[in-house]
């Protein structure tokens, strides 16, 4: 009996030792949504620290991946439908809806999600979809700008980005001062902050593929945002995720759409150049 229990103990410790230093490969699978092939692996652009870019989809559990692949089951599609409703609803003092000027989003918004953030000459800063929506609302509709993370803001952003599903991310750094915002974003990406002294790179570059507790670390790409997350059971915007990550390092959290987070969005979007827009993606 004693000999048997010693052998059993040895077996248990071998198993637990193997589980500790976990590097797991992202899966080798294709993502096809209603016939559209989604590029989840791409050759990195010049000057990128990685050779191959990987979508966060490849790092998730089989059930999560299956949920995104099924446009009926993907709960993010409900947000797309809500976004379409908003697109066609008149709002503001000028009696216009998005559709009044932009007509059919499946035509006019095609490619938009893949090419933002874009330089806005009037504001002299990069605009993401959320900022562009608010600009349109105030300047062209006489409507109130959305507060950060308003459910309608998320739904409309999801709807607009979804029109670019499958198209490769490609932002233009030659516009205006985009390059200097990219530089600033890169600096922020690699700066350690907070009580835990982590930078974005600590997890998403240095430890990509490893586990942080039970979470399989991806490259931290932006191509699927706004994303449907199981943990909150709702849509999560990119800046919400930035703030969440930074909060998790126990650092002071920058405001959404602040210069810091806009610079970070420019840089992080660039880091995904070539990956397809997956909005609405499904994540843990």
């Amino acid at each position: 009996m004693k000999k048997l229990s010693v052998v059993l103990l040895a077996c248990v410790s071998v198993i637990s030792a193997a589980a500790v230093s976990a590097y797991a490969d992202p899966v080798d699978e294709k993502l096809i949504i209603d016939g559209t092939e989604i590029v989840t692996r791409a050759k990195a652009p010049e000057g990128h620290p990685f050779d191959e870019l990987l979508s966060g989809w490849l790092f998730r559990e089989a059930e999560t991946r299956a949920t995104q692949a099924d446009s009926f089951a993907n709960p993010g599609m409900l947000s797309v439908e809500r976004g379409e409703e908003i697109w066609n609803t008149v709002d503001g003092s000028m009696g216009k809806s998005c559709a009044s000027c932009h007509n059919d989003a499946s035509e006019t918004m095609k490619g938009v999600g893949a090419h933002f953030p874009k330089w806005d000459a009037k504001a002299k800063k990069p605009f993401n979809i959320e900022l562009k929506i608010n600009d349109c609302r105030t300047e062209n509709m006489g409507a109130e700008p959305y507060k950060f993370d308003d459910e309608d803001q998320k739904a409309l952003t999801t709807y607009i980005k979804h029109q670019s599903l499958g198209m490769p991310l490609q932002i233009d750094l030659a516009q205006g001062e985009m390059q200097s915002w990219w530089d600033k974003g890169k600096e922020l990406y690699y700066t350690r902050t907070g009580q835990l002294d982590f930078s974005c790179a600590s997890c998403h570059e240095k430890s990509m593929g490893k586990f942080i507790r039970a979470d399989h670390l991806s490259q931290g790409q932006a191509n699927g945002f706004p994303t449907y997350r199981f943990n909150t059971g709702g849509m999560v915007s990119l800046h919400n995720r930035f703030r969440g990550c930074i909060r998790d390092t126990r650092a002071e959290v920058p405001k959404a759409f602040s210069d810091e987070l806009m610079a970070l969005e420019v840089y992080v979007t660039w880091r995904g150049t070539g990956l397809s827009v997956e909005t609405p993606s499904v994540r843990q």
Partner: protein
Amino acid sequence: MAAKPKPRIKVPKEAKVGELVTIKTLISHEMESGQRKDKEGNLIPRKIINKFACDFNGAPVFSCDIDPAISANPYFEFSAKLTESGAFTFTWTDDDGSVYTDEQKITVS
């Protein structure tokens, strides 16, 4: 999520007699469990879909009582073997008494 709960159904348009047909159903609904508290510490009242039923040409196919453990946007998938053409009717009942319905026809040959 959305303002008013919206049902979504996925049913094949055609099927053969005796063939197993898969029916997928979803309704957008917050499914407030009644356990959460708001910022002031007050309990947010429960408001969920508490019953789902599917009939085919008037005969029951599948139904269930739903409790707060079911998360938002309840998704139900089940199958049926049909012997005639007709229509599925789907009924969701909310705690507040509202009833949401949808219908889907199918040709069986």
